[in-house]
């Protein structure tokens, strides 16, 4: 930490400036497009056409786009569906993954190795989306939220991470709990979970993001647009360019006094709306997951 705190030569100082600038460039390239979309979505609709892609401040100011978005039935339905799938899915994920990881972290468990291999096989060999679809169909889960909620009940990678974490817990603590007659579930609840809280919080957040970002399974398992999560609505509108889904004429006229809302602004707003929830939990992800590397411990 000590050695190079004083940068002596001008060469070294230039070097350092270049390093910081390179990172700044990366920050700008990451953030500018998002700020541009936000600015477009907040601009006065008359001034949106011709607005530069470089702009990061709204031209004029109007909340028309957001008023349309947040009252649009398809968007609201999408939000509600996303929320339902995310909350229910994450709850199931966390419970199933934690229980499983706890059992598999016990080295004495007979058959442990066989079960781990049994799980690893599913990571290594995935026969693709058609068999998945046909199984869903045979189970009668097509056009049910359960298909999207359950298809990723336990994510093998997160399971492995959690097993590793549970294995770190000192055996003496577990033995002490068992001596006092605690059941496996009680040991998990009172001893293991509190100690592994950062790890459990991390996989909770990661599962939340996975569910929120899920679109493909919803697309193929759910026929009814009324059941689509927000991502699929966004995809239909922005990627497929299907305007009919989003732009009901009445919605356009109602909130803008008959003047057209620019389609570009509406798309921009929709993209921002879809990433807001991720942005909202992102600080928590940083807090739990990257704590170690962000502590600012500096070496020379």
């Amino acid at each position: 930490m000590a050695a190079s705190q004083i940068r002596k030569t001008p060469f070294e100082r230039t070097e350092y400036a270049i390093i910081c600038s390179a990172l700044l460039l990366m920050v700008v390239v990451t953030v500018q497009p998002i700020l541009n979309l936000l600015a477009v979505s907040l601009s006065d609709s008359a001034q949106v056409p011709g607005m530069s892609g470089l702009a990061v401040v709204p031209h004029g100011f109007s909340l028309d786009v957001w008023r349309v978005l947040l009252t649009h039935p398809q968007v609201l339905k999408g939000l509600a569906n996303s929320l339902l799938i995310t909350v229910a899915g994450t709850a199931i994920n966390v419970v199933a993954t934690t229980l499983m990881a706890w059992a598999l972290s016990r080295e004495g468990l007979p058959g442990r190795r066989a079960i781990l291999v049994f799980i690893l096989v599913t990571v290594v060999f995935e026969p693709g989306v058609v068999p998945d679809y046909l199984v869903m169909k045979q189970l009668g889960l097509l056009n049910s939220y359960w298909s999207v909620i359950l298809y990723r009940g336990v994510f093998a990678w997160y399971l492995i991470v959690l097993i590793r974490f549970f294995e770190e817990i000192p055996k003496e603590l577990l033995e002490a709990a068992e001596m006092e007659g605690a059941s496996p579930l009680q040991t998990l609840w009172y001893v293991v979970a509190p100690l592994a809280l950062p790890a459990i919080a991390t996989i909770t957040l990661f599962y939340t993001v996975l569910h929120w970002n899920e679109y493909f399974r919803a697309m193929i398992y759910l026929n009814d647009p009324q059941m689509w999560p927000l991502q699929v609505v966004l995809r239909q509108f922005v990627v497929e360019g299907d305007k009919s889904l989003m732009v009901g004429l009445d919605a356009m006229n109602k909130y803008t006094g008959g003047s057209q809302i620019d389609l570009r602004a509406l798309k921009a707003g929709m993209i921002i709306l879809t990433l807001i929830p991720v942005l909202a939990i992102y600080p928590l992800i940083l807090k739990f997951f990257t704590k170690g590397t962000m502590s600012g411990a500096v070496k020379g």
Partner: protein
Amino acid sequence: MTGIDHSASGVTPALHGNVPKARASGLRRVWRWRGYYLMLLPGLLYFVVFHYLPIWQAKLAFQDYRIIGPSVWVGLKHFRALLDSPVFTQVLWNTVLISAMKLVLLFPVPVIVALLVNEVQGSRYRRFVQSVIYLPHFLSWIVIAGVFIAVLSPVDGTVNDLLGLAGFAPVPFMTSEGSILWVLVFSEMWRSAGWDSLLFLAAVMAIDPQLYDAATIDGAGRWRKIWNVTLPALVPTMATVFILNLGAFMSAGFDQVFNFSNDAIRDRIDILDTYVYRMGLVGGEYAYATAAGVFKAVIGMGMILAAHVVSKRLTGKGVW
């Protein structure tokens, strides 16, 4: 690890009658762990229903699909059809090309980013940079596709506005065959360069500071220290990341390609997974598409296992 015997009795506990003595104590052992097996149950059920049933269902690759009545075995018919199809050959080539471009061009990027971040001394600036560059990893590919469609638009996109300032004519990046592969590579970098650097940064920070102090005393400058101390310490992490990338090689980033696709360039970036989706779920050719999926899965599995064996031999550390 205290003398574990993973006896088969752990998996087949339902044996009664005149059980030999060793077997009996094995059963008693299993019974003692019953609480844990109960906790495994929901997860195991999930893996059976949503992973092993599809694996069983994949036998369809060797059958002809019938809506009514049992499917008929046709052996390798679909696989022969696949390999005879010029479209499939093209799709296979696209997959390999896209994956190889990403692997070769993007592999060094997170390492460089980690090295840069590690050089930053002010903890405020460092924290700021980190909290920005990790973000794109958590955005869905739909959102990213939306962002890139806007940024690369020939009419009012950021990149073309910049090109315009420099006096160049606008380029329709998203819809031209010449540029779409580079768009895929760059957007992948936009999404993962920051996040992927985290692993390397952690490895860098785990290096013993005394090594740097010793190098400083020996008169090594910034670059010599990076070359002689930091990079060698990153080799094991690089090996792990390389293997993981190889494991995803045949996927070539389905979510990305699927959302960056459009009619103008579809043939150029059609990959195995998009082909399976289109033939199977859009076109209804269930058996044929399953064969394509199994083809991909078998090659992918081969690559992971090969990488695992090679890594185990070279570094003593496998994927698992």
